[in-house]
């Protein structure tokens, strides 16, 4: 079982690393948006992609192309992201290649799903919110990154 795990540097990345036990005994590859994040996951294969947001379409496309290459090369069984826009790009690339996708919306989105989360909701195979009041027939709440 091989998992590609994507998160932007900062809070998204911190939240992704808190899910590590879910990938126990699996082959795990990481993607984030700063080279230096690699030091937080020693022993794992690691890729850095350009940071992007929906406000910079050029960077977003760059990010999508780089992530498409990574997803194609790695051929994971599952792609998971805790956000933000680059993670969404990774999920889209995975979807195109027929790979299953998981979106975990950041705990920061307490009142409504993030913009990326709302888009991921349309196609991701599994989408999590960390707030019970945001769960519905499609969005699952099974707890949060805090324990």
């Amino acid at each position, binding site marked *: 079982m091989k998992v590609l795990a994507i998160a932007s540097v900062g*809070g998204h990345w911190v939240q992704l690393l808190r*899910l590590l*036990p*879910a990938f126990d005994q699996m082959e795990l590859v990481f993607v984030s948006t*700063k080279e230096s994040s690699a030091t937080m996951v020693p022993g794992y294969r690691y890729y850095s992609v350009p940071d992007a947001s929906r406000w910079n379409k050029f960077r977003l496309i760059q990010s999508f192309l780089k992530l498409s290459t990574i997803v194609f090369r790695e051929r994971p069984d599952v792609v998971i992201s805790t956000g933000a826009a680059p993670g969404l790009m990774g999920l889209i690339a995975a979807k195109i290649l027929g790979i299953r996708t998981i979106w975990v919306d950041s*705990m920061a989105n307490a009142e409504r799903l993030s913009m990326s989360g709302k888009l991921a909701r349309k196609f991701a195979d599994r989408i*999590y919110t960390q707030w019970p009041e945001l769960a519905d027939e499609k969005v699952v709440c*099974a*707890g949060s990154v805090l324990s």
Partner: protein
Amino acid sequence: MIFVTTGTQAPFNRLVRAMDEIAADLKDEEIIVQAFEVDFEPLNLKVVGFLEPAAYTELFDRARLIVSHAGMGSIVSALTTGKPIIVMPRKASLQEHRNDHQIDTARKMETLQSIPVAYEATDLKPMILKMLAEGNPKPVPATGRFASSSLIQSVRNFINKQTNK
């Protein structure tokens, strides 16, 4: 030492400016601010830009108080290490973020985790003085290193379901 952290993305000059004014009254306290695009010349504190993970952790651990924007990275780090923290949410109306989710986060964390929130810059000074005066400020309730076991199990089950297909 007070470590002020404003995240990886955008400037937050309202917080930096407030801290510079507070620093003038806290001459004996070292204050280190991690911030981008600071639009004035701070007189009383040291500003650094993006911090590598090891440097961030070093400052975070060394600080006796964290003052932060209401970002999940700082909040989760404080909860994990039991480090006292005050958060000040960014406001969309001041172009400090794309939307007001930091205010939502701050309200939730205030209610659920007893994290002190400065909703306005003017709230900061009395809160900081109070926390420092308490000597060893009360740590915020802690969390473990990982997500709740129910979330971890759910993610794991979903991944494993795929292989059996």
